């Protein structure tokens, strides 16, 4: 990677300050290069491999390049391995696609990024040829889940190594390696659960994943009838809650949407620290935690990783801002959330125990998945969704699976004092209980 990066740096530096035939003068550049290798292996209908889930080795070099020209012109392009071989043709295209942007991002000055550990030796060993653990996850997952009487198990393992280089013409040069690992197991096409970090799972983490998947699928195979329609307590499991946070909250915290009046929140709302949610709720991004899927050392623009509150004490703090929208909104750039809602840190002083709380409710629905979240209007906050995998619980006892349609307002869920946040086994993010309208 560094040779590729150095050669690209050299070609670009040769152009700095020169007026090209198009009339453009290059004043700066930055790039974000990735050299990636992946091992993937899958399981379909209890069988490892096969034409849809064949084990595969994949290699790719790609990245993004941005060129700053005189007179506020800017070029952005996705590049691939042959960018150096075909540099002149690429340069011609980059000149043609230059556009005037008064808010074009500047360059980050050189600095030493936090040394967040992101490359796990077990994952590296797999990509160096020790493939066995990847297949073992699938075999063990299959064995555990079928032990719960599940007749159809699917899943996949993906282990990656990404050698990343972020550099710019002001001398920024940040190079590091990371190893994202994802393992997914699913039963009967009803429910699946994922492990995603930048390391291999510890044995107890992996067995917890398989056991949780098997148990949940077993419960979801028992059908029952919704006793009544109307308002009732709903519990979103952490995965569902994270998906809602991603769709509604992160969309509306997008700097681009805020700057362009396409968010539920206006720029002024952030300047005024407008209270939008309950006072004990703080939501942050944190890219500094070792080996976490959402961690990194810098953004593609070179902005350092860190922790930043997006919501603090129920009040708006900042949108998620890259350099351009930070400039446009007159605010500081922020670290960016990686992995959507799963990458958010939810801070609440009070969380109830999950099992204990279930026992206190007359009845409730635990929602494991919804259909159609991506079709909802993120800017309005309201939702109307099919909950295809939900368990009816009465007096703390699981009765079985029901299929329902839920309707509610996600902004209200985050704002209401009677919303209850719950510690959930194996998960950092909370489950959340609120009242919403339920129909069969």
């Amino acid at each position, binding site marked *: 990677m560094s040779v590729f990066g150095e050669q690209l740096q050299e070609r670009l530096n040769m152009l700095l300050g020169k007026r090209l035939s198009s009339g453009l003068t290059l004043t700066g550049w930055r790039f974000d290069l990735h050299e990636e290798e992946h091992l993937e292996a899958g399981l*379909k*209908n209890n*069988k*490892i*491999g*096969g*034409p*849809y*889930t*064949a*084990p*595969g*080795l*994949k*290699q*790719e*070099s790609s990245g993004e390049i941005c060129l700053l020209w005189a007179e506020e012109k800017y*070029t*952005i*392009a*996705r*590049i*691939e*391995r042959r960018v150096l071989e075909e540099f002149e043709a690429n340069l011609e*295209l*980059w000149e*043609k*696609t230059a*556009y005037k*942007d008064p808010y074009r991002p500047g360059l980050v000055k050189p600095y030493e990024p936090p040394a967040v550990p992101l490359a796990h030796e077990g994952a590296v060993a797999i990509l160096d040829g020790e493939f066995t653990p990847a*297949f073992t996850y699938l*075999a063990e997952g299959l064995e555990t889940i079928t032990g719960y009487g599940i007749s*159809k198990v699917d899943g996949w393992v993906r282990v990656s190594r990404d050698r990343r280089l972020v550099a710019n013409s002001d001398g920024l040069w940040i190079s590091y390696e990371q190893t994202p690992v994802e393992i997914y197991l699913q039963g009967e*096409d*009803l429910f699946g659960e994922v492990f995603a970090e930048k390391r291999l799972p510890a044995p107890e983490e992996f067995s917890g994943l398989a056991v949780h998947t098997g148990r949940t699928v077993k419960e979801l195979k028992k059908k029952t009838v919704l006793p009544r329609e*109307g*308002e009732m307590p709903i519990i979103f499991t952490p995965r569902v809650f994270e998906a809602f946070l991603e769709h509604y909250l992160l969309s509306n915290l997008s700097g*681009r949407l805020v700057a*362009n*009046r*396409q968010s*539920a929140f*206006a720029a002024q709302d952030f300047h005024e620290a407008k209270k939008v949610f309950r006072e004990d709720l703080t939501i942050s991004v944190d890219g500094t935690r070792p080996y976490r899927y959402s961690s990194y050392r810098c953004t593609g623009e070179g902005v350092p990783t860190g922790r930043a509150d997006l919501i603090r004490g129920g009040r708006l703090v900042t949108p998620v801002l890259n350099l351009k929208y930070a400039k446009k909104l007159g605010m500081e750039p922020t670290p960016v959330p990686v992995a959507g809602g799963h990458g958010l840190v939810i801070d609440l002083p009070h969380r109830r125990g999950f099992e204990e709380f279930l026992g206190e409710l007359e009845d409730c629905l635990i929602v494991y998945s919804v*259909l*159609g979240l*991506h*079709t909802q*209007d*993120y*800017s*309005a906050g309201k939702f*109307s*969704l*099919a909950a*295809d995998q939900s368990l009816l619980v009465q007096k703390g006892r699981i009765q079985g699976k029901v*299929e329902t*349609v839920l*309707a509610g307002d996600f902004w209200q869920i985050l704002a209401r004092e009677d919303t209850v946040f719950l510690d959930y086994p194996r998960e950092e993010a909370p489950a959340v209980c609120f009242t919403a*309208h339920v*129909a069969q």
Partner: protein
Amino acid sequence: MTRSLRVDCYDETVEAAAEMGRKENAGFILRIQEKKELLFNLNNGETEEIATTSLRGMGIQVCTSEGYTGFASSDRIAPSTVKELFRQALALAKRVEAMKGEVNTALFNVPPNNRRVVMSLKHPYGSCSLGEIEERLVKLNKSLAMDPRLSVRTVHRLVDEEWRVARHDGTDTVFMTPRSFIYNTFTARENGRTATTYSNLPGTDLSILLEPAETAKLYKKSVPAAKMALALLNTGTVKSGSYKLVIDYALAKVLAHEAFGHAAETDGMESSILGENGRLRRGMEVASPIVSIIDGPVEGDYAYQPVSANGIDRQTVYIVRDGILEAGLADLFSAEAAGVPVTGAGRAEAFYHLPLARMSNIRIQVKDPWPIEEEFEEITPEKLYKYMLQAGLMEEDEEVYYLSGFKGGQVNTAEGNFVFNCSGIYRLGPVPRLYRPAIYSGRVLTALQAVRAGLGPLKIDAMGTCGKMFQGVPSSGGSHYFLVLEKNPGIMLGGEGG
């Protein structure tokens, strides 16, 4: 002889793969992809981004003579690289064999194919200056900002994509999958309320921007969408329940795609509601007898793909004919197990993906539709109400809701549940009343049984992106301008008490 394509220059790589196949006595499918892409992003009259993308690479799927499969891919395309990838994929296939993994020998039972599809495009990638494209898009975007409460985003994407698929049996097929779209998003904000609507125009090249008839069509679609976003700021919600419904052709495309097409894909037949013991239940009554569902490539369409990612010609398939399940969307590897012929349904997003059985252009066709001579874009909810009365499809004071504008959908093919969403809902009447969007959800077979009539000619250019197994491929389809669905307790609108 047709003109040459970029993928034509890889003859030596294809030959090197064939040589490896002979040497190792193994079958293979080699996929070479070359893609160039141009993206414009404008907001409120200003250019926010112009970005280019280039993607090149190859993936090779190797199958041992016993039927075990391995895969390897690289963004280098060269004879030495394909030999190395072949060895890696073969080693992985042997590991699958050691683990007693899945066996599939279908690759050895298909005839070779040397089809070459080179399309002639009126305004292809590179035929117009970027400055002119930008100028036209800015003009369009500004023209749609008709109210200070509106924010308008315009995205234009132009893709110039070529594929070459070769196999051990001498297959060497080349095809293009060009596509383009202009997509407008309208966000209305007032007093803390917001509403978002969309309009779009798909195509295969820059004609959607350069041909006056095309831009006029987009404008006709966009103005009502912008007005709807504003009107939605002050509307209520429909009480949840089952109603007689009218859906437009874009929603009908989603009904066909989400509620039915996925269940007909043969790679999911083990758990599909249209399968029994892994085989497609041909002959099963799945829809009203007036309904047929057809899928197949349409030249000039946004989702056009004439040849599958396994090198087999894609066929046009009557999945349902007159209400009866007749065929599946079958790719090479799952057709036999599902008990149906191969229809060339395998598609992949990129060279580093393994293909899956997928739809292309799927449409619902209804017998004896009520004729409408106007263009779809001319038909307001008021006019639709009149057509419904004239056709005898509703009474004057009947509670009928018209779902307008597509916002996506999702399906669980194992259980037969689907949902989809619209941009807005009208209660039809002399003065139609607008409500906020709400999901339409229910059971696949119930929904198709509920189709009572179609109005207008077929219109099959509704576009989307299908995300099956995290691979995004273009999809399209439609139906008659409008479909009428009878009230049925198995299909429900909304989810709020009202």
